[in-house]
Protein backbone atom coordinates (compact mmCIF):
# COMPACT_ATOMS: atom_id res chain seq x y z
CA UNK A 1 0.00 0.00 0.00
CA UNK A 2 1.43 3.38 -0.97
CA UNK A 3 1.92 5.93 1.75
CA UNK A 4 -0.14 9.09 1.49
CA UNK A 5 2.80 11.18 2.70
CA UNK A 6 6.40 10.04 2.72
CA UNK A 7 9.16 12.46 3.66
CA UNK A 8 12.88 11.71 4.04
CA UNK A 9 15.41 14.22 5.34
CA UNK A 10 13.16 17.10 4.36
CA UNK A 11 14.48 20.59 5.06
CA UNK A 12 13.52 24.12 4.22
CA UNK A 13 15.68 27.23 4.47
CA UNK A 14 14.35 30.73 3.85
CA UNK A 15 16.78 33.29 2.50
CA UNK A 16 20.48 32.85 1.84
CA UNK A 17 23.84 33.67 3.43
CA UNK A 18 23.73 35.42 6.82
CA UNK A 19 20.03 36.03 6.47
CA UNK A 20 19.22 32.35 6.04
CA UNK A 21 16.67 30.90 8.42
CA UNK A 22 16.40 27.16 8.75
CA UNK A 23 12.69 26.62 9.15
CA UNK A 24 12.76 22.84 8.89
CA UNK A 25 15.53 20.30 9.23
CA UNK A 26 15.75 16.56 8.71
CA UNK A 27 12.05 15.79 8.73
CA UNK A 28 11.11 12.13 8.32
CA UNK A 29 7.45 11.34 8.08
CA UNK A 30 5.34 8.42 7.00
CA UNK A 31 1.62 8.69 6.82
CA UNK A 32 -0.75 5.94 5.77
CA UNK A 33 -4.19 5.98 4.21
CA UNK A 34 -6.80 7.21 6.70
CA UNK A 35 -4.31 8.56 9.22
CA UNK A 36 -5.13 11.68 11.17
CA UNK A 37 -1.87 13.38 12.05
CA UNK A 38 -1.55 16.55 14.12
CA UNK A 39 1.50 18.77 14.04
CA UNK A 40 1.88 20.63 17.31
CA UNK A 41 4.54 22.98 18.62
CA UNK A 42 5.27 26.57 19.56
CA UNK A 43 5.14 29.39 17.02
CA UNK A 44 8.06 29.25 14.65
CA UNK A 45 8.58 25.50 14.92
CA UNK A 46 7.87 25.09 11.22
CA UNK A 47 4.62 23.17 11.50
CA UNK A 48 2.85 25.41 9.00
CA UNK A 49 5.88 25.30 6.75
CA UNK A 50 5.78 21.50 6.78
CA UNK A 51 2.09 21.60 5.89
CA UNK A 52 2.84 24.01 3.05
CA UNK A 53 5.60 21.76 1.73
CA UNK A 54 3.24 18.79 1.75
CA UNK A 55 0.60 20.89 -0.04
CA UNK A 56 3.08 22.20 -2.64
CA UNK A 57 2.54 25.80 -1.57
CA UNK A 58 6.30 25.92 -0.96
CA UNK A 59 9.25 23.87 -2.23
CA UNK A 60 11.65 22.02 0.08
CA UNK A 61 15.29 23.10 0.04
CA UNK A 62 16.44 19.50 0.23
CA UNK A 63 15.17 16.02 0.99
CA UNK A 64 12.53 13.85 -0.57
CA UNK A 65 8.80 14.20 -0.35
CA UNK A 66 6.19 12.14 -2.10
CA UNK A 67 2.42 12.24 -1.92
CA UNK A 68 0.61 9.05 -2.94
CA UNK A 69 3.86 8.04 -4.62
CA UNK A 70 3.95 11.25 -6.69
CA UNK A 71 5.74 14.57 -6.42
CA UNK A 72 3.78 17.18 -4.42
CA UNK A 73 3.51 19.22 -7.62
CA UNK A 74 1.91 16.33 -9.50
CA UNK A 75 -0.35 15.63 -6.52
CA UNK A 76 -1.54 19.22 -6.60
CA UNK A 77 -2.22 19.04 -10.34
CA UNK A 78 -4.16 15.82 -9.66
CA UNK A 79 -6.21 17.69 -7.05
CA UNK A 80 -5.14 15.46 -4.20
CA UNK A 81 -5.32 18.29 -1.66
CA UNK A 82 -8.19 19.87 0.17
CA UNK A 83 -6.96 22.91 2.07
CA UNK A 84 -8.51 24.64 5.07
CA UNK A 85 -6.83 27.73 6.49
CA UNK A 86 -7.24 29.56 9.78
CA UNK A 87 -9.48 32.08 8.07
CA UNK A 88 -12.33 30.53 6.11
CA UNK A 89 -11.21 32.37 2.95
CA UNK A 90 -14.64 32.28 1.39
CA UNK A 91 -15.20 34.47 -1.64
CA UNK A 92 -17.51 37.31 -0.59
CA UNK A 93 -19.25 37.53 -3.95
CA UNK A 94 -20.33 33.90 -3.98
CA UNK A 95 -23.15 32.31 -2.08
CA UNK A 96 -22.35 29.45 0.28
CA UNK A 97 -23.28 26.91 -2.40
CA UNK A 98 -21.18 28.69 -5.05
CA UNK A 99 -18.23 28.77 -2.67
CA UNK A 100 -18.44 25.01 -2.22
CA UNK A 101 -18.74 24.61 -5.99
CA UNK A 102 -15.61 26.68 -6.67
CA UNK A 103 -13.09 23.79 -6.87
CA UNK A 104 -15.59 21.74 -8.88
CA UNK A 105 -15.94 24.58 -11.38
CA UNK A 106 -12.18 24.68 -11.79
CA UNK A 107 -12.24 20.92 -12.40
CA UNK A 108 -14.89 21.37 -15.10
CA UNK A 109 -17.46 19.25 -13.29
CA UNK A 110 -20.82 19.67 -15.11
CA UNK A 111 -23.17 22.19 -13.49
CA UNK A 112 -25.84 19.68 -12.46
CA UNK A 113 -23.34 17.44 -10.74
CA UNK A 114 -21.67 20.43 -9.11
CA UNK A 115 -24.82 21.57 -7.45
CA UNK A 116 -25.78 18.05 -6.32
CA UNK A 117 -22.32 17.59 -4.86
CA UNK A 118 -22.38 21.00 -3.16
CA UNK A 119 -25.76 20.22 -1.63
CA UNK A 120 -24.49 16.86 -0.36
CA UNK A 121 -21.45 18.49 1.19
CA UNK A 122 -23.51 21.22 2.83
CA UNK A 123 -25.82 18.55 4.27
CA UNK A 124 -22.73 16.78 5.57
CA UNK A 125 -21.60 19.89 7.46
CA UNK A 126 -25.22 20.59 8.43
CA UNK A 127 -25.55 23.84 6.56
CA UNK A 128 -28.05 22.68 3.92
CA UNK A 129 -30.50 25.47 4.67
CA UNK A 130 -27.83 28.16 4.27
CA UNK A 131 -26.84 27.29 0.69
CA UNK A 132 -28.24 30.56 -0.66
CA UNK A 133 -26.69 32.81 1.98
CA UNK A 134 -23.61 34.93 1.52
CA UNK A 135 -20.54 34.25 3.70
CA UNK A 136 -20.87 37.48 5.70
CA UNK A 137 -24.33 36.37 6.83
CA UNK A 138 -22.81 33.40 8.68
CA UNK A 139 -20.98 33.18 12.00
CA UNK A 140 -17.28 32.32 12.12
CA UNK A 141 -17.94 28.65 12.93
CA UNK A 142 -20.42 28.30 10.08
CA UNK A 143 -17.98 29.94 7.67
CA UNK A 144 -15.29 27.49 8.67
CA UNK A 145 -17.69 24.60 8.06
CA UNK A 146 -18.33 25.94 4.57
CA UNK A 147 -14.56 26.02 4.03
CA UNK A 148 -14.36 22.38 5.12
CA UNK A 149 -17.25 21.44 2.83
CA UNK A 150 -15.42 23.17 -0.03
CA UNK A 151 -12.19 21.32 0.74
CA UNK A 152 -13.97 17.96 0.78
CA UNK A 153 -16.27 18.62 -2.20
CA UNK A 154 -13.91 17.06 -4.73
CA UNK A 155 -13.00 14.12 -2.46
CA UNK A 156 -9.30 14.87 -2.11
CA UNK A 157 -7.02 12.10 -0.90
CA UNK A 158 -5.50 14.39 1.70
CA UNK A 159 -7.07 17.11 3.81
CA UNK A 160 -4.60 19.75 4.98
CA UNK A 161 -5.81 21.93 7.83
CA UNK A 162 -3.74 24.86 9.11
CA UNK A 163 -5.05 25.89 12.55
CA UNK A 164 -8.58 25.81 11.18
CA UNK A 165 -10.25 26.49 14.53
CA UNK A 166 -7.69 28.94 15.89
CA UNK A 167 -10.06 31.88 15.55
CA UNK A 168 -13.09 30.18 17.12
CA UNK A 169 -14.32 30.27 20.68
CA UNK A 170 -13.85 27.19 22.86
CA UNK A 171 -17.46 25.97 22.63
CA UNK A 172 -17.60 26.24 18.86
CA UNK A 173 -14.17 24.74 18.66
CA UNK A 174 -15.18 21.54 20.47
CA UNK A 175 -18.24 21.13 18.28
CA UNK A 176 -16.14 21.66 15.17
CA UNK A 177 -13.68 19.01 16.34
CA UNK A 178 -16.55 16.57 16.69
CA UNK A 179 -17.68 17.52 13.21
CA UNK A 180 -14.25 16.99 11.69
CA UNK A 181 -14.01 13.54 13.24
CA UNK A 182 -17.41 12.64 11.85
CA UNK A 183 -16.42 13.86 8.37
CA UNK A 184 -13.13 12.02 8.61
CA UNK A 185 -14.96 8.78 9.48
CA UNK A 186 -17.55 9.28 6.73
CA UNK A 187 -15.16 10.22 3.93
CA UNK A 188 -12.15 8.09 4.85
CA UNK A 189 -9.78 10.89 3.88
CA UNK A 190 -6.34 11.33 5.45
CA UNK A 191 -5.77 14.49 7.46
CA UNK A 192 -2.75 16.58 8.38
CA UNK A 193 -3.80 19.03 11.06
CA UNK A 194 -1.72 21.93 12.39
CA UNK A 195 -2.68 23.22 15.82
CA UNK A 196 -1.52 25.09 18.93
CA UNK A 197 -3.90 23.24 21.18
CA UNK A 198 -2.75 20.11 23.00
CA UNK A 199 -6.27 18.80 23.85
CA UNK A 200 -7.34 19.39 20.27
CA UNK A 201 -4.39 17.44 18.88
CA UNK A 202 -5.00 14.52 21.27
CA UNK A 203 -8.76 14.44 20.76
CA UNK A 204 -8.58 14.38 16.97
CA UNK A 205 -5.51 12.43 15.98
CA UNK A 206 -4.30 8.93 15.44
CA UNK A 207 -0.80 10.33 15.87
CA UNK A 208 0.58 13.58 17.29
CA UNK A 209 3.91 14.88 16.03
CA UNK A 210 5.56 17.26 18.48
CA UNK A 211 7.77 19.83 16.77
CA UNK A 212 10.49 22.05 18.21
CA UNK A 213 11.93 25.23 16.71
CA UNK A 214 15.34 26.48 15.49
CA UNK A 215 15.55 24.53 13.34
CA UNK A 216 12.10 22.97 13.09
CA UNK A 217 12.26 19.25 13.69
CA UNK A 218 9.93 16.49 14.79
CA UNK A 219 11.13 15.77 18.33
CA UNK A 220 8.50 13.29 19.47
CA UNK A 221 5.86 11.13 17.98
CA UNK A 222 2.96 10.07 20.18
CA UNK A 223 0.47 7.44 19.05
CA UNK A 224 -3.01 8.22 20.31
CA UNK A 225 -4.52 4.93 21.39
CA UNK A 226 -7.93 6.27 22.35
CA UNK A 227 -10.98 4.36 21.07
CA UNK A 228 -11.65 5.30 17.46
CA UNK A 229 -15.14 6.53 18.31
CA UNK A 230 -14.56 9.79 20.14
CA UNK A 231 -17.13 11.96 21.82
CA UNK A 232 -17.84 13.83 25.03
CA UNK A 233 -16.96 10.67 27.02
CA UNK A 234 -13.51 10.65 25.45
CA UNK A 235 -12.85 14.05 26.97
CA UNK A 236 -13.46 12.51 30.42
CA UNK A 237 -11.39 9.40 29.76
CA UNK A 238 -8.31 9.13 32.08
CA UNK A 239 -6.27 7.94 29.10
CA UNK A 240 -7.14 11.21 27.32
CA UNK A 241 -5.60 13.15 30.20
CA UNK A 242 -2.54 10.90 30.29
CA UNK A 243 -1.96 11.54 26.60
CA UNK A 244 -2.42 15.28 27.03
CA UNK A 245 0.19 15.18 29.78
CA UNK A 246 2.55 13.20 27.58
CA UNK A 247 2.27 15.73 24.76
CA UNK A 248 2.69 18.60 27.21
CA UNK A 249 5.80 16.99 28.70
CA UNK A 250 7.19 16.39 25.25
CA UNK A 251 6.69 20.07 24.43
CA UNK A 252 8.17 21.19 27.79
CA UNK A 253 11.25 18.97 27.63
CA UNK A 254 12.55 21.01 24.70
CA UNK A 255 11.71 24.29 26.34
CA UNK A 256 15.16 25.60 27.11
Amino acid at each position, binding site marked *: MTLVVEAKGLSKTFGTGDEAVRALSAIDLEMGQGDFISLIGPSGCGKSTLLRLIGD*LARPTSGELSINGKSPHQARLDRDYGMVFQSATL*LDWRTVRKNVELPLE*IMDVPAAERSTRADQMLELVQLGQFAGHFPWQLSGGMQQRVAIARALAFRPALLLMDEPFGALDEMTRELMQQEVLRLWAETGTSVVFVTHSIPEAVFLSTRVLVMTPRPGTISDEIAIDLPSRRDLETRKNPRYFELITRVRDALRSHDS
Partner: protein
Amino acid sequence: MTGFDGELRAGASRSSAMRRSATRYGPAVAAFVLVILLWEGITRLLGVETFVLAKPSEIMSSFIETWATVWGVGFRTLWEALGGFVIGVSAAVLTSFAAARWVGFREGMLPIAIAMNSMPIVALAPIFNNWFGSTNVFAKMSVAAVVVYFPVMINTTRGLLEVEPRELELMRSVAATPTETMRRVRIPHALPFFFASLKVASALSLIAAIVAEYFGGPQNVLGQYIINRANLFQFPDAWAAILVASLLGIAFYVVILVAERLAMPWHVSFREAE
Protein backbone atom coordinates in the same frame (compact mmCIF):
# COMPACT_ATOMS: atom_id res chain seq x y z
CA MET B 1 -28.58 21.99 12.95
CA THR B 2 -26.38 21.90 15.94
CA GLY B 3 -27.71 25.35 16.77
CA PHE B 4 -24.59 26.71 18.38
CA ASP B 5 -23.94 29.33 15.80
CA GLY B 6 -27.32 29.82 14.27
CA GLU B 7 -27.76 33.54 14.81
CA LEU B 8 -28.24 35.06 11.42
CA ARG B 9 -28.06 38.70 10.77
CA ALA B 10 -31.57 39.45 9.69
CA GLY B 11 -32.07 41.82 6.79
CA ALA B 12 -34.21 44.85 7.52
CA SER B 13 -37.58 45.17 5.82
CA ARG B 14 -38.24 47.41 2.83
CA SER B 15 -40.30 50.04 4.65
CA SER B 16 -37.62 50.64 7.24
CA ALA B 17 -35.11 50.93 4.40
CA MET B 18 -37.22 53.74 2.93
CA ARG B 19 -37.45 55.45 6.29
CA ARG B 20 -33.71 55.20 6.57
CA SER B 21 -33.14 56.72 3.13
CA ALA B 22 -35.42 59.62 4.17
CA THR B 23 -33.31 60.27 7.25
CA ARG B 24 -30.16 59.82 5.19
CA TYR B 25 -31.02 62.17 2.31
CA GLY B 26 -33.25 64.57 4.26
CA PRO B 27 -30.38 66.75 5.56
CA ALA B 28 -28.79 66.99 2.12
CA VAL B 29 -32.05 68.13 0.50
CA ALA B 30 -32.64 70.66 3.28
CA ALA B 31 -29.10 72.03 2.96
CA PHE B 32 -29.51 72.36 -0.81
CA VAL B 33 -32.77 74.33 -0.48
CA LEU B 34 -31.17 76.52 2.18
CA VAL B 35 -28.17 77.34 0.00
CA ILE B 36 -30.43 78.32 -2.93
CA LEU B 37 -32.57 80.53 -0.68
CA LEU B 38 -29.50 82.20 0.84
CA TRP B 39 -28.03 82.73 -2.63
CA GLU B 40 -31.25 84.36 -3.86
CA GLY B 41 -31.69 86.40 -0.65
CA ILE B 42 -28.14 87.72 -0.42
CA THR B 43 -27.83 88.63 -4.12
CA ARG B 44 -31.14 90.54 -3.84
CA LEU B 45 -30.31 92.15 -0.53
CA LEU B 46 -26.87 93.36 -1.56
CA GLY B 47 -27.96 94.15 -5.12
CA VAL B 48 -25.25 91.96 -6.62
CA GLU B 49 -24.98 92.55 -10.39
CA THR B 50 -26.00 89.70 -12.64
CA PHE B 51 -22.60 89.62 -14.39
CA VAL B 52 -20.97 89.01 -11.01
CA LEU B 53 -23.40 86.37 -9.80
CA ALA B 54 -26.77 85.61 -11.37
CA LYS B 55 -29.69 84.94 -9.06
CA PRO B 56 -31.11 81.43 -8.95
CA SER B 57 -34.46 82.82 -10.17
CA GLU B 58 -32.79 84.41 -13.24
CA ILE B 59 -30.92 81.19 -13.95
CA MET B 60 -34.12 79.15 -13.69
CA SER B 61 -36.06 81.40 -16.05
CA SER B 62 -33.21 81.34 -18.57
CA PHE B 63 -33.01 77.56 -18.14
CA ILE B 64 -36.69 77.27 -19.08
CA GLU B 65 -36.55 79.83 -21.91
CA THR B 66 -33.49 78.34 -23.60
CA TRP B 67 -34.51 74.76 -22.71
CA ALA B 68 -34.14 73.21 -26.19
CA THR B 69 -30.93 75.06 -27.07
CA VAL B 70 -29.14 74.47 -23.83
CA TRP B 71 -30.01 70.76 -23.68
CA GLY B 72 -29.05 70.48 -27.36
CA VAL B 73 -25.54 71.77 -26.71
CA GLY B 74 -25.45 69.75 -23.50
CA PHE B 75 -26.09 66.47 -25.27
CA ARG B 76 -23.45 67.20 -27.90
CA THR B 77 -20.92 67.68 -25.13
CA LEU B 78 -22.21 64.59 -23.35
CA TRP B 79 -21.64 62.64 -26.57
CA GLU B 80 -17.99 63.75 -26.63
CA ALA B 81 -17.60 62.90 -22.96
CA LEU B 82 -19.28 59.50 -23.32
CA GLY B 83 -17.23 58.61 -26.38
CA GLY B 84 -14.04 59.55 -24.55
CA PHE B 85 -15.21 57.68 -21.46
CA VAL B 86 -15.85 54.45 -23.38
CA ILE B 87 -12.54 54.64 -25.25
CA GLY B 88 -10.56 55.59 -22.13
CA VAL B 89 -12.15 52.95 -19.89
CA SER B 90 -11.73 50.19 -22.51
CA ALA B 91 -8.07 51.03 -23.00
CA ALA B 92 -7.56 51.24 -19.22
CA VAL B 93 -9.16 47.84 -18.60
CA LEU B 94 -7.08 46.17 -21.31
CA THR B 95 -3.90 47.69 -19.86
CA SER B 96 -4.89 46.56 -16.35
CA PHE B 97 -5.38 42.97 -17.48
CA ALA B 98 -2.00 43.00 -19.17
CA ALA B 99 -0.40 44.54 -16.07
CA ALA B 100 -1.98 41.95 -13.79
CA ARG B 101 -1.00 39.11 -16.09
CA TRP B 102 2.61 39.98 -16.98
CA VAL B 103 5.02 41.15 -14.32
CA GLY B 104 7.43 42.59 -16.90
CA PHE B 105 4.71 44.71 -18.44
CA ARG B 106 3.60 45.88 -15.00
CA GLU B 107 7.06 46.84 -13.85
CA GLY B 108 7.90 48.57 -17.09
CA MET B 109 4.64 50.39 -17.70
CA LEU B 110 3.14 51.33 -14.36
CA PRO B 111 5.78 53.86 -13.23
CA ILE B 112 5.48 55.62 -16.58
CA ALA B 113 1.70 55.63 -16.32
CA ILE B 114 1.80 57.04 -12.80
CA ALA B 115 4.23 59.73 -13.87
CA MET B 116 2.02 60.62 -16.84
CA ASN B 117 -0.99 60.78 -14.54
CA SER B 118 0.39 63.89 -12.88
CA MET B 119 0.52 65.67 -16.24
CA PRO B 120 -2.32 68.23 -16.80
CA ILE B 121 -3.85 66.36 -19.68
CA VAL B 122 -6.35 69.02 -20.80
CA ALA B 123 -3.26 71.00 -21.81
CA LEU B 124 -3.07 68.52 -24.70
CA ALA B 125 -6.37 69.76 -26.14
CA PRO B 126 -4.83 72.18 -28.69
CA ILE B 127 -2.51 69.41 -29.84
CA PHE B 128 -5.42 66.99 -30.35
CA ASN B 129 -7.33 69.75 -32.17
CA ASN B 130 -4.38 69.97 -34.48
CA TRP B 131 -4.15 66.18 -34.97
CA PHE B 132 -7.79 65.42 -35.65
CA GLY B 133 -9.03 68.83 -36.82
CA SER B 134 -10.79 71.07 -34.34
CA THR B 135 -14.25 70.32 -35.79
CA ASN B 136 -13.77 66.56 -35.51
CA VAL B 137 -15.66 65.21 -32.50
CA PHE B 138 -12.77 62.81 -31.96
CA ALA B 139 -10.48 65.72 -30.98
CA LYS B 140 -12.61 66.27 -27.84
CA MET B 141 -13.19 62.56 -27.26
CA SER B 142 -9.45 61.91 -27.17
CA VAL B 143 -8.92 64.49 -24.44
CA ALA B 144 -11.68 62.91 -22.36
CA ALA B 145 -10.31 59.44 -23.11
CA VAL B 146 -6.79 60.29 -21.94
CA VAL B 147 -8.09 62.01 -18.81
CA VAL B 148 -10.27 59.00 -17.96
CA TYR B 149 -7.61 56.43 -18.78
CA PHE B 150 -5.20 56.98 -15.91
CA PRO B 151 -7.39 56.81 -12.79
CA VAL B 152 -9.30 53.83 -14.16
CA MET B 153 -6.15 51.99 -15.19
CA ILE B 154 -4.29 52.61 -11.93
CA ASN B 155 -7.24 51.68 -9.70
CA THR B 156 -8.28 48.63 -11.67
CA THR B 157 -4.73 47.33 -11.72
CA ARG B 158 -4.52 47.77 -7.97
CA GLY B 159 -7.78 45.88 -7.53
CA LEU B 160 -6.57 43.02 -9.71
CA LEU B 161 -3.29 42.76 -7.83
CA GLU B 162 -4.24 43.43 -4.22
CA VAL B 163 -5.86 40.07 -3.66
CA GLU B 164 -5.70 38.19 -0.37
CA PRO B 165 -2.67 35.84 -0.53
CA ARG B 166 -4.89 33.16 1.07
CA GLU B 167 -7.31 33.35 -1.84
CA LEU B 168 -4.47 32.86 -4.28
CA GLU B 169 -3.20 29.88 -2.28
CA LEU B 170 -6.67 28.41 -2.28
CA MET B 171 -6.76 28.67 -6.07
CA ARG B 172 -3.25 27.26 -6.30
CA SER B 173 -4.15 24.31 -4.06
CA VAL B 174 -6.81 23.20 -6.55
CA ALA B 175 -4.42 23.77 -9.46
CA ALA B 176 -6.38 26.66 -10.98
CA THR B 177 -4.81 28.23 -14.08
CA PRO B 178 -3.91 31.95 -14.05
CA THR B 179 -6.90 32.60 -16.30
CA GLU B 180 -9.27 30.89 -13.84
CA THR B 181 -7.74 32.83 -10.95
CA MET B 182 -8.21 36.01 -12.95
CA ARG B 183 -11.83 35.24 -13.66
CA ARG B 184 -12.91 33.90 -10.31
CA VAL B 185 -10.81 35.87 -7.85
CA ARG B 186 -9.02 38.87 -9.34
CA ILE B 187 -11.82 40.33 -11.44
CA PRO B 188 -14.52 40.16 -8.72
CA HIS B 189 -11.98 41.60 -6.33
CA ALA B 190 -11.20 44.49 -8.68
CA LEU B 191 -14.84 45.47 -9.26
CA PRO B 192 -15.12 47.83 -6.25
CA PHE B 193 -11.88 49.55 -7.30
CA PHE B 194 -13.07 49.71 -10.91
CA PHE B 195 -16.41 51.28 -10.04
CA ALA B 196 -14.85 53.76 -7.64
CA SER B 197 -12.61 54.91 -10.48
CA LEU B 198 -15.57 55.07 -12.90
CA LYS B 199 -17.33 57.49 -10.55
CA VAL B 200 -14.32 59.78 -10.67
CA ALA B 201 -13.95 59.22 -14.41
CA SER B 202 -17.56 60.16 -15.18
CA ALA B 203 -17.06 63.67 -13.80
CA LEU B 204 -13.58 63.92 -15.31
CA SER B 205 -14.82 63.03 -18.80
CA LEU B 206 -17.37 65.88 -18.77
CA ILE B 207 -14.83 68.35 -17.40
CA ALA B 208 -12.31 67.28 -20.03
CA ALA B 209 -14.83 67.61 -22.87
CA ILE B 210 -15.93 71.13 -21.79
CA VAL B 211 -12.40 72.38 -21.23
CA ALA B 212 -11.34 70.94 -24.59
CA GLU B 213 -14.23 72.85 -26.17
CA TYR B 214 -12.86 76.10 -24.75
CA PHE B 215 -9.84 75.62 -27.00
CA GLY B 216 -12.01 75.97 -30.10
CA GLY B 217 -14.08 73.86 -32.45
CA PRO B 218 -17.79 73.67 -33.27
CA GLN B 219 -19.94 76.37 -31.64
CA ASN B 220 -22.95 74.20 -30.70
CA VAL B 221 -21.37 72.62 -27.60
CA LEU B 222 -21.45 73.55 -23.90
CA GLY B 223 -17.98 75.07 -23.67
CA GLN B 224 -18.40 77.37 -26.67
CA TYR B 225 -22.00 78.17 -25.72
CA ILE B 226 -20.88 79.31 -22.25
CA ILE B 227 -18.10 81.46 -23.76
CA ASN B 228 -20.46 83.02 -26.30
CA ARG B 229 -23.24 83.80 -23.81
CA ALA B 230 -20.74 85.25 -21.35
CA ASN B 231 -19.23 87.45 -24.08
CA LEU B 232 -22.72 88.74 -24.82
CA PHE B 233 -23.26 89.46 -21.11
CA GLN B 234 -26.05 86.87 -21.07
CA PHE B 235 -24.86 85.47 -17.77
CA PRO B 236 -28.06 83.70 -16.73
CA ASP B 237 -27.80 81.75 -20.03
CA ALA B 238 -24.21 80.81 -19.21
CA TRP B 239 -25.30 79.72 -15.74
CA ALA B 240 -28.16 77.69 -17.22
CA ALA B 241 -25.59 75.88 -19.37
CA ILE B 242 -23.51 75.21 -16.27
CA LEU B 243 -26.65 73.84 -14.61
CA VAL B 244 -27.14 71.48 -17.58
CA ALA B 245 -23.52 70.36 -17.31
CA SER B 246 -24.06 69.60 -13.59
CA LEU B 247 -27.29 67.71 -14.23
CA LEU B 248 -25.60 65.63 -16.94
CA GLY B 249 -22.73 64.92 -14.56
CA ILE B 250 -25.12 63.80 -11.81
CA ALA B 251 -27.11 61.62 -14.22
CA PHE B 252 -23.90 60.01 -15.46
CA TYR B 253 -22.82 59.35 -11.87
CA VAL B 254 -26.19 57.80 -10.99
CA VAL B 255 -26.03 55.47 -13.99
CA ILE B 256 -22.65 54.21 -12.75
CA LEU B 257 -24.01 53.83 -9.23
CA VAL B 258 -26.85 51.64 -10.55
CA ALA B 259 -24.45 49.60 -12.68
CA GLU B 260 -22.24 49.12 -9.64
CA ARG B 261 -25.12 47.81 -7.59
CA LEU B 262 -26.14 45.40 -10.36
CA ALA B 263 -22.58 44.19 -10.89
CA MET B 264 -21.76 43.52 -7.25
CA PRO B 265 -24.88 43.21 -5.09
CA TRP B 266 -22.74 41.28 -2.61
CA HIS B 267 -20.52 44.21 -1.78
CA VAL B 268 -20.17 45.39 1.81
CA SER B 269 -21.30 48.93 0.95
CA PHE B 270 -24.77 47.66 -0.01
CA ARG B 271 -25.38 45.54 3.05
CA GLU B 272 -28.17 46.52 5.38
CA ALA B 273 -26.86 48.43 8.36
CA GLU B 274 -27.21 46.54 11.61
